[in-house]
């Protein structure tokens, strides 16, 4: 802010000095605020977008913001771009914000979100029927702990992630109890601990993420999701309950502040054009999480190697 103050005072001089330095003249020098969340894949996508916009001469600020709380900031223009809005977890929040005004959905990133019950491969020996969901009915004991015995224990995500797991257990009549982790860090801590000991575990894993790359395992095969499953009790195996199916797999969207189109039309187009797929992002995230590289370094490397990709977004 000190900088922007001084900048305001010396604006005239600067415009003269820096004209023509950038690829194309940006429409506004106000910073575009790109939100960062708490998982690595998102940090990578957001930074690739941000660095691309910087190459085009825009000013970019990265802002730590809560995944769901960010829409409140985006409606007022405090935040400009959210690079990963997962259909599985935040679509409701985004749609609500769009309805209230101020937020715009600018399409899919090309990545597909998977979020469901997952187990490490070594559990197949202890519970042979996997990955079919019905196998869980017979090997609940294998997954049980003193708190849940005789029921099995399923480690769900933080309560804030939603996901209707308690309802799913009811609807499919699974002998399991849902225990919610407070954060994904806690969740993966448990996975790591169990994985080291080859101990039983059944938990919520999502992709794109480094976990399914680092750990050998599979998602449970529930009856595939259909919209009717979540809306209509009659649908599916249990005629009296909703949620008797897998979780939706869905695209990951990008969302922007509605005013962006007018303020930075070029940047708006670039965000719209941005595209990636699960594998690429998963690999980049793994470089950070598993090889211990810095997000910035990984992004810089990608930017250097893939100039044609990001240049295309800018056109």
């Amino acid at each position, binding site marked *: 802010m000190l900088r922007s103050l001084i900048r305001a005072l010396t604006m005239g001089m600067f415009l003269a000095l820096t004209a023509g330095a950038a690829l194309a003249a940006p429409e506004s*020098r106000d910073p575009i605020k790109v939100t960062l969340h708490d998982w*690595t894949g998102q940090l990578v996508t957001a930074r690739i977008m941000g660095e691309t916009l910087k190459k085009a001469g825009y000013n970019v600020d990265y*802002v730590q913001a809560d995944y769901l*709380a960010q829409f409140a900031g985006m409606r007022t223009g405090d935040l400009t771009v959210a690079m990963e809005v997962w259909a599985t977890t935040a679509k409701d929040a985004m749609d609500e914000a769009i309805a209230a005004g101020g937020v715009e959905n600018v399409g899919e990133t090309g990545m597909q979100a998977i979020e469901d019950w997952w187990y490490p491969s070594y559990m197949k020996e202890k519970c042979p029927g996997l990955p079919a969901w019905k196998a869980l009915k017979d090997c609940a004991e294998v997954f049980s*702990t003193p708190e849940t015995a005789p029921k099995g224990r399923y480690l769900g995500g933080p309560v*804030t992630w939603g996901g209707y797991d308690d309802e799913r257990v009811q609807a499919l009549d699974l002998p399991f109890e849902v225990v*919610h982790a407070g954060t994904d860090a*806690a969740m993966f801590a448990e996975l790591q601990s169990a994985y080291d000991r080859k101990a039983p575990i059944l938990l919520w894993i999502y992709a794109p993420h480094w976990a399914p790359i680092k750990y050998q395992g599979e998602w449970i095969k529930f009856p595939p999701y259909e919209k009717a499953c979540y809306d209509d009790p009659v649908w599916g195996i249990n005629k009296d309950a909703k949620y008797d199916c897998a979780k939706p797999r869905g695209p990951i969207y990008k969302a922007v502040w509605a005013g962006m189109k007018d303020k930075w039309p070029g940047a708006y187009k670039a965000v719209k054009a941005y595209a990636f797929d699960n594998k690429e992002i998963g690999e980049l995230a793994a470089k950070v999480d598993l090889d211990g590289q810095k997000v910035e370094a990984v992004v810089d490397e990608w930017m250097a190697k893939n100039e044609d990709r990001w240049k295309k977004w800018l056109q």
Partner: protein
Amino acid sequence: MSLTAVGEPAAERRRAPLGWLLWPALLAATVVLVSLPAGALPAWMTRYPAAWQVPVAAEISAFMRWLMESATFGVFTVRELTRGIAWVLDLPLAAAKAVLAGGIGWGRGAETVSLAPAIPWFSALIAGVAAGYWAGGARLALLMGAGLGYLAVFGQWPSAMVTLASVLVSSALGAAGGLLIGLACVRWRWVERAVSPLLDLAQTMPVFAYLLPMLILFGFGPVSAMIATIVYAMPPMIRVTTLAIRAVPPEIRELGAMTGCTRAQLTWKMLVPSALPALMVGVNQVIMLSLNVVIIASMIGAGGLGFDVLAALRRLDIGAGLEAGLAITVLAILLDRFAQALATKSARAPERDPERAARKRRLLTGAFWVAALLWLAAALKPDIAGYPEALRLSTAPYWNDLVRWINVTFFSTLEAIRAWAFLNLLAPVKRFALALPWVWVVALVGIAGYRLGGFRLAALTVALSLFIAAVGLWQVAMLTVYLCGLAVVVAALIGVAVGVASATRPRLWRAVETVIDLLQTLPSFVYLIPIVMLFRVGDFTALIAIVLYAVAPAIRYTAHGVARTPPALVDASVMNGCTRRQILTRVRLPLALPEILLGINQTVMLALSMLVITALVGTRDLGQETYSALAKADIGKGLVAGLCVAFIGIIADRLISAAAERTKRRMGLGR
């Protein structure tokens, strides 16, 4: 005073027979109520009827929406005002960050003109050592060198400087604000009356609860984090200021009047400087509390070490998380010792030997010039500014391996402990807490309030607990009470035992003190994740984390209380032929009781403040309510849940303080 002193024991005696019967009777009644079969009591008694709920949360949310979207002062809107405040507060923060971390310059993006880089690590190290020598002599200089060296060698430097910048600015603003508010409290009674309940709230309410309103009022980013930090860290400064200024000897005030001081002269030339050593204690507290919320602040964009800790733990790099966490501890220790040295410096005799004074001065100016020249050199040749990668150390892999090893080797033992604790301790207490009819709990709290502090206290405790019921959070609140209560009991047992053991053994005490200092300054998140790996997600993990964090005051106050037994009494009991054990149980412990109660009071407060952190490992109590309200941007829900936590804290605080006061009076130790 003399009247009450005479009247009190008589009243005490008269009430005593009832007193002996009252608590066992209440306990029996409670057990009966809990074991009653379902349906024996009217439904409205066991579960607070939904129809009676007051929609406070929704109304707060609606009010905030109105405030931010339509409220206006005519010329400008509320929103413009709060954003203006944020802009002003950002100036010092940006300046500090520029000097310490970002580099001085202007412009942004492609047009950045850099004037000078941030102060490089070697300049800062030299300046830090010199400042340490100036403030506290060779010992502090050594400590500064070691601490800053750790930050550089272990690769924490850039993040540590971001954290340092924000902690310095928020502590400075917090201390200055606290001083001014404190002075206003001394000057005007009505300010004190208005501020005092707010302080209680600010100290007991979880930070998460007001983080969201901050974000919405002041925008996303470091400034909101800073304001939340200030709100959290300022209250002790206000309290210390009012106490310290009131404690200035009346003669100094009279001197002020007799020399014809104006009010401003009296305040700034006499009262504040005279109270300075005491005020520095408050400043110290502000710094420590600011460091306490570094992690939480990093969740809304403060960056720095807090973010590193979170990021490392998110990828399960426990070693890296520990190193970043220790960097926070190092910063805490350095700032703490430096502030203390400053406070005592004014109380020490200055150097009189002119030659030595001159040598010291030459040394210091020399060091600062070297630091400045090195900075200049770094500005001209930027590649030398960073700490060379090749010389970096990291112990992270060892820590990771250690945790893995413990996990693989001892898991079954740990699992057995956990299962035992769960089945015999956690589960029964939880069932008990949830089975209590809310009406009875409110009544109990009221009776306790009346017995300990009279009608006013009873009215307060009943009103606060009714609020919790009325907003419909009774069940979650009881979960909170269960988890915190259990943690406090465990912490108190450990704390009293350790405190008693170390009170009369100075060497043991030094070791204990180091450990509890570490536990209090190390961000709890750092040990939370390894505990999760060893004990799984769940209440037991949360219990351990809370006990680890909250045990410190119980130990400290017990040790202090026991050690402070008047020597004459100890001598007297030795002469009466008491054994060591008898001296402890018959003399030292009873006399230390009020002090121990105060320690437990602090333990309760810390346990409550830890709730929010344990929400991160999946507890389902009020902490989780405030945390998930933050994630869902539900201001009303967050604030109401936060208020409930605060109210539980206030009820506990008032009851325990009243009990401590009563025992003190009974023993004639009080005022």
